[in-house]
């Protein structure tokens, strides 16, 4: 070549090729990252088909005082003590098995966790107490349990 090549380093400029290589790399790896993220978004379902977390359990009269009934489908135990009512989860906090009502409270068949009447852990590997859920009275006179709204254990709903 007749024309001497200019030395970009000397003038403090980035060579054109390096600049283009940087842009291309950012474009390529950026697209790859976007593809990964959009796949993760794709995998997260927006609609689930499992039963609603909020459901009706019937009128208060159906539960005479002293009742402790495990509703297996809803995975809650409905408790009535006098005129106070509560819903305690029957999903074991250990690994998600369904706990059974026992003489002393609840017992899990999978890994031997035990809970007392209020769901506090009395033995086994369970890391925390069974949660209590909010109970409300719907306008139609039926009790509603909302499993998305845990309440402090010992919080009763007075009927």
């Amino acid at each position, binding site marked *: 070549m007749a024309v001497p090549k200019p030395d970009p380093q000397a003038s403090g400029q980035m060579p054109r090729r390096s600049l283009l290589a940087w842009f291309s790399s950012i474009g390529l790896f950026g697209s790859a990252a976007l593809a990964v993220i959009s796949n993760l978004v794709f*995998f997260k379902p927006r609609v*689930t*088909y*499992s039963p609603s977390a909020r459901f009706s359990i019937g009128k208060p009269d159906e539960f005479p005082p002293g009742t402790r009934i495990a509703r297996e489908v809803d995975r809650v135990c409905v408790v009535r003590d006098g005129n106070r009512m509560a819903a305690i989860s029957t999903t074991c906090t250990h690994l998600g*098995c369904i706990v059974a009502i026992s003489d002393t409270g609840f017992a899990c068949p*999978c890994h031997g966790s035990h809970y007392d009447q209020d769901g506090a852990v009395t033995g086994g590997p369970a*890391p925390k107490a069974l949660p209590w859920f909010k109970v409300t009275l719907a306008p139609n006179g039926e009790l509603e349990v909302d499993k998305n709204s845990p309440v402090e254990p010992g919080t009763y709903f007075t009927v």
Partner: protein
Amino acid sequence: MSAPATKSPGLWTSVRELPSNVWSSIFRHPLPSNDLERSQTSFTNFFLHLHPVKVHRNTLRPVYTLGLGLISLFLFLILVVTGVLLMFYYVPSTTQAYDRMLDLRGTVAFGIFLRNMHRWSAHGMVAMVFLHMCRVFFTGAYKKPREFNWIIGVVLLLLTLFMSFTGYLLPWDQLAFWAITVGTSIAGYAPLVGSQIKFLLLGDTVVGQEALLRFYVLHVAVLPAILSVIVAIHFWRIRKDGGLSRPETVPAKTDSGVVQLRIEPGKRVFGLQGFVRGPFTKIGNVPDDSVYSWPNLLMAELFVFVLTVSIILVVSLAFNAPLEQPVNVMHPPNPAKAPWYFLGLQEMVSYSAFWGGIGVPTLFVVLLLFAPFIDRNPQGTGRWFARERLLANTIFMSLAVLNVIFIIIGTFFRGPNWTFVSPF
């Protein structure tokens, strides 16, 4: 070739020679009868080119490898074949899956037999991959330059377990449902991302139709594809890392007149390949204690293949794969047990969900992955239980035995409510 040979043969000759021409276009070489032909056959056949032309005698010693890696591969092949066949009758639907299991048992020709083969091969593969890892450790075969292949091997072990785990849900019986309920709950204990991972895996908050579909796709498409690619890399690296590990002492027979040549740049001219291959290149017909792969290695492989298939066939004839009651979301079996290879994990989980299910297993995997970089003692490679490797072998043996003990306790000594029971 002389001029007359270029003359086109007549039509009749072409027809008469058609079979042999087709045959020789597929197989370039006849069955080899001398060393040159043995090399050519290994080089030019697609299925044989995985093999080196020659292998070290140590590679063929049954007591060195015990054939465990090969057995794992053949079990995987059996699993692919039987799995694809089972796919023709299986529907990943909560309402149909269990009925399809009953169909396999009752109406499909060889259905129960194929399912038995698939199930027992899956169990066998988990066991064999684990034993293969033990073999590699106790012979020190993970050391330089094979560190990366060891890491690939650990990944393959995890993939094998995940394959098994995803397949476990598909029959949609009580065993499947509760094992996966417990298993995915363990994933939920991972810090920060645990509940997210569980939700992505199940496609829902509980094990249901979405989970069955996801596990199915992972089991029949995603994981086998990943596993196949990584297995290919695993094999490729065996060749590139200098073949199977062997004792470090190489008898250099200088008195026989043949000198082992070393690559010394500048003194001789070598092909480019000779350089990139590094320390394993040998020049000339060096007495390196190796034999031709055809027929020595191939016969050994055939033997292991026939043995593996025979054992699976016999076991599948004798024992039926378990199928319990259809899923009842309300009533977990008591005790609800995971497959045997996860019972060590489940036993640990019964002490602490986080440490047993996430903490300790993660620590184990990290230790395994970094083993070649922690134990950098170059001695004792290529021999079982080398004295120089006493410490490393003792640590690994202790952890392996501990794992087996946990599995035995979980399998035989745990009864209802996971209380301690005596099997006797």
